[in-house]
């Protein structure tokens, strides 16, 4: 096999192949695209987090604290829209998935590199339109754009809608790319049940991305046209049906919850196995449960419309179907716990996030069952209970898995380690800050505090104040991570090819990987089998297969970018 080797016999890594701004702007390399996504998404995360903190600070006292009522409406709308459409939906698939999924398959790139680049630029365009909306008097409709309010709002709804439309197509193209990549780029000998669970999860996510997102696309397109041409499809004044908008919106946005959570589950499956030094318990069940979650996600959107004037039959059917989602979710949780059982658990930063995930996801999932019960939902609908529930799922689960995945794959992609102690501290900060923020919200929601309110009854004051304090802890913990990741990219300790002793293929690639990921074709070993790894130091694992003793003795790749 012909390789372009330099004098030292090493092929240049993907940073060294080409340099300069244009080599990044025009890149078709999935790792560079993933890395650009990562920076963009992290920036959006900080922006959305800043909005969240302003919302929380406003709620520190009843009445006006820092902003007025209209600005408050804009703040929570922007927090929701930025976090959902710019951060959590693309977070794990487009950033982490892009960087590692092809390598996990032993593939040189995704199936359609140009489409991948197009997805990234669609994401950028969508993000710019969102910023434009903020600049032109930020949208205040809530991130759900419910009609008829979104038709009458005086704020800049149109750029935000167009932004969401473009972000949707970015997501569709990423999903399409991943589906084809998984189908057509598995190496000889890697059957469906030798796929890493992260790939399974991304595959299941991609199904939802391709099949659900177009409905969001057409919905926001119709709303866009409705807004400036008054086409009447959602406008009750012209004979349209505003509840139809809710159906269309949730037909995407409920599956979108699974676009957010399924890849997180994939990351967690990898982390728990690796850091328990134990094969995943019930591999096939976890794989199948990803697919069944993807399929069930299409059948439950009506549970967002229990109080919107849906027929009684429909509410009962949707309520019953909602409970079925609990089955695959519980299968995963039980399998993770069984994997941990009698494992050789290492509490490195990624594992701290994985353990946080299991706990927070369990709380988020179980409170979802409360909301699926019709009678209870009538009481809890549009209260802080709902807010706490979906933050436990979207943030406590997805964002925590995203951070865990970042710490886990950071050494592979960047070639340097992050500061471990600080990482562990921040992981603890995220966990405690998160719970402090959202546990009180369950309580005040159950006691009747409605969501999206600018003012509140003094009896809720203590809960709001606890929540605000928690949000600050959470915000600081995440902000510090952004700083130390940047610091580590230059100053961290050089990473080994396989610092965690993981069994998936990306850890056989050089660190950082070369342009086409592998210098020699990766060797397919038994997945999630850690028997052949030898632990040398705390962060220095090698594969000790007697047949491949040369590989085992391989020096850590130098990066030097």
């Amino acid at each position: 096999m012909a390789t372009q080797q330099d004098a030292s016999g090493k092929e240049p890594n993907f940073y060294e192949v080409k340099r300069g701004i244009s080599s990044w702007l025009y890149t078709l390399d999935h790792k560079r695209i993933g890395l650009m996504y990562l920076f963009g998404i992290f920036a959006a995360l900080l922006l959305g987090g800043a909005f969240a903190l302003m919302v929380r600070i406003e709620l520190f006292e009843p009445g006006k604290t820092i902003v007025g009522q209209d600005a408050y409406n804009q703040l929570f709308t922007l927090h929701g829209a930025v976090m959902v459409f710019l951060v959590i939906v693309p977070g794990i698939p487009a950033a982490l998935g892009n960087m590692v999924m092809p390598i996990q398959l032993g593939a040189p790139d995704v199936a359609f590199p140009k489409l991948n680049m197009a997805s990234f630029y669609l994401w950028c365009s969508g993000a710019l339109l969102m910023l434009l909306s903020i600049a032109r008097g930020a949208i205040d409709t809530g991130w759900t754009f419910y009609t008829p309010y979104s038709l009458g709002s005086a704020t800049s709804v149109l750029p935000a809608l167009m932004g969401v439309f473009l972000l949707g197509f970015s997501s569709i193209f990423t999903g399409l790319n991943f589906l084809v990549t998984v189908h057509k780029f598995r190496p000889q000998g890697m059957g469906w049940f030798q796929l890493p669970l992260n790939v399974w999860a991304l595959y299941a996510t991609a199904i939802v991305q391709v099949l659900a997102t177009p409905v969001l696309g057409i919905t926001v397109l119709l709303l866009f046209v409705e807004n400036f041409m008054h086409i009447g499809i959602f406008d009750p004044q012209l004979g349209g049906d505003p509840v139809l908008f809710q159906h269309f919106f949730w037909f995407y946005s409920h599956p979108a919850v699974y676009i957010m959570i399924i890849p997180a589950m994939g990351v967690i499956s990898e982390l728990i196995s690796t850091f328990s030094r134990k094969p995943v318990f019930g591999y096939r069940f976890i794989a199948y449960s990803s697919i069944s979650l993807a399929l069930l996600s299409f059948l439950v959107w009506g549970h967002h419309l229990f109080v919107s004037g849906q027929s009684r039959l429909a509410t009962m059917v949707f309520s019953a179907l909602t409970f079925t989602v609990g089955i695959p979710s519980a299968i995963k949780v039980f399998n993770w716990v069984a994997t941990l059982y009698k494992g050789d658990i290492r509490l490195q930063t990624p594992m701290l996030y994985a353990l946080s995930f299991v706990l927070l996801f369990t709380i988020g999932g179980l409170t979802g069952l409360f909301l699926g019960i019709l009678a209870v939902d009538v009481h809890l609908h549009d209260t802080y209970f709902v807010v706490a529930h979906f933050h436990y799922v979207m943030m406590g689960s997805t964002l925590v898995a995203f951070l865990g995945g970042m710490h886990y794959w950071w050494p592979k992609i960047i070639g340097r380690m992050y500061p471990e102690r600080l990482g562990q501290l921040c992981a603890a900060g995220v966990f405690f800050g998160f719970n402090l923020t959202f546990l009180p919200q369950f309580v005040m929601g159950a006691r009747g505090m409605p969501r999206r309110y600018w003012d509140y009854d003094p009896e809720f004051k203590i809960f709001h104040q606890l929540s605000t304090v928690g949000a600050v802890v959470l915000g600081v913990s995440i902000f510090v991570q952004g700083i130390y990741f940047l610091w580590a990219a230059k100053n961290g300790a050089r990473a080994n090819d396989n610092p965690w002793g993981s069994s998936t293929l990306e850890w056989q690639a050089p660190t950082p990987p070369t342009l086409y990921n592998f210098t020699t074709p990766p060797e397919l070993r038994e997945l999630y089998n850690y028997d052949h790894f030898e632990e040398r130091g705390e962060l220095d694992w090698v594969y000790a297969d007697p047949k491949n003793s040369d590989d085992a003795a391989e020096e850590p790749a130098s990066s030097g970018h």
Partner: protein
Amino acid sequence: MSQPHDHHEHGHGSRFIQHHYDDAQHQFDAGKLGIWLFLAQEVLFFSALFVAYILYRSHHPEIYAYAHHYLDVKFGAINTAVLIGSSLTAAWAVRCAQLGQRRGLILNLSVTLLCALTFLGIKYVEYSHKIHEGILFGSKFDPCVSSGGSPLVTKKNECHGTKSSVVWDATAGKATEGCLESAKIDLDPKLEGLQTRCTVSELSMTPGPDGKPALVPNGKTFEPCPLAAAHGEHGAAAGGEGGAHGAAPCYVLSFQPAICPAGPAALVKYGDHAVRRDVGIKVECEAAPEPTVGDPFADRTNEPALGSALISERPAPSKHELAEQFAAGPPPPNTNMFFSIYFAMTGLHGIHVLVGVIVFIWLLLRAIRGDFTPDYFGPIDYAALYWHIVDLIWIFLFPLLYLIH
């Protein structure tokens, strides 16, 4: 798996095989799966509009039964044939590419492109007529027809010649007094006064394409009004009911359905556009007096009484009769919804056709350059598949929008 790292040295297949694929077959298979997934995405993209269609039609069948008369089946049918034909040539182009027949490929791509442009041309004609007549979506729906078929007025006290539905009372020698649905017009703040009494001062017209007058729902044929003769267009005197010459209702060719609840009136069916162009009407209207007593449309509270009287005196109308009534009567409320759906569906479909045109131009240029070989014809195949789905969506749209009964 092999990973050739050099861009253009593969030793297999065409120079268009990208570096990360094993071989031409690998690239083709990946592309094919990709385009199928894209088509699945397209189906879901259109699905919301189909759901909206089903929902609004099941809730308001009268709107659909009434409004589809505004669409011209002839144009829709021609477009259907054009698209099916282009699907054939698109598939044929794939075959030619597989067999390496460059001339056949170029020919078939050209025909497909021409068909796509023909489709867009016809769509342009349809759209421009609707824009001209104010038959548009949502709040832009302003077809210049009064319920009750009164002499037509618009917001600016005028009717633009071809938009009218005029019922001529031959006995009185003037247009029947209006039955404007005042509540509806009052909604519009831009309206300068309610108009009810109009006189047709000038009218010229030609008969339908077959030279015959239009059919009325009860099966009787009415002659054109004598007014036409006065303008030297027609010599025919008013014929009509009971053979009472000169006192019977007559019709003025109209392309809007019209009905008047009292007095001599004629129902006219929606005509075709070519004829309508030849009808010129000038209408002068007076400012409205207070709503006259006994006008069922002026006083909304009379409506239930009228409705119950109709129900008690008549046997339940058949489905067919209902459809005829819908076709002939005043537009039901929210008729604009049909055109919202119509323009959303055909507009989105039209955008897809436009994309198809761009893709086929690109493929045609590449085919002329000789890019495609039996080893490398993926783009032709993918574009043809895309074109088939565009075709298929139209095959659903045509009956759903044009062929409603």
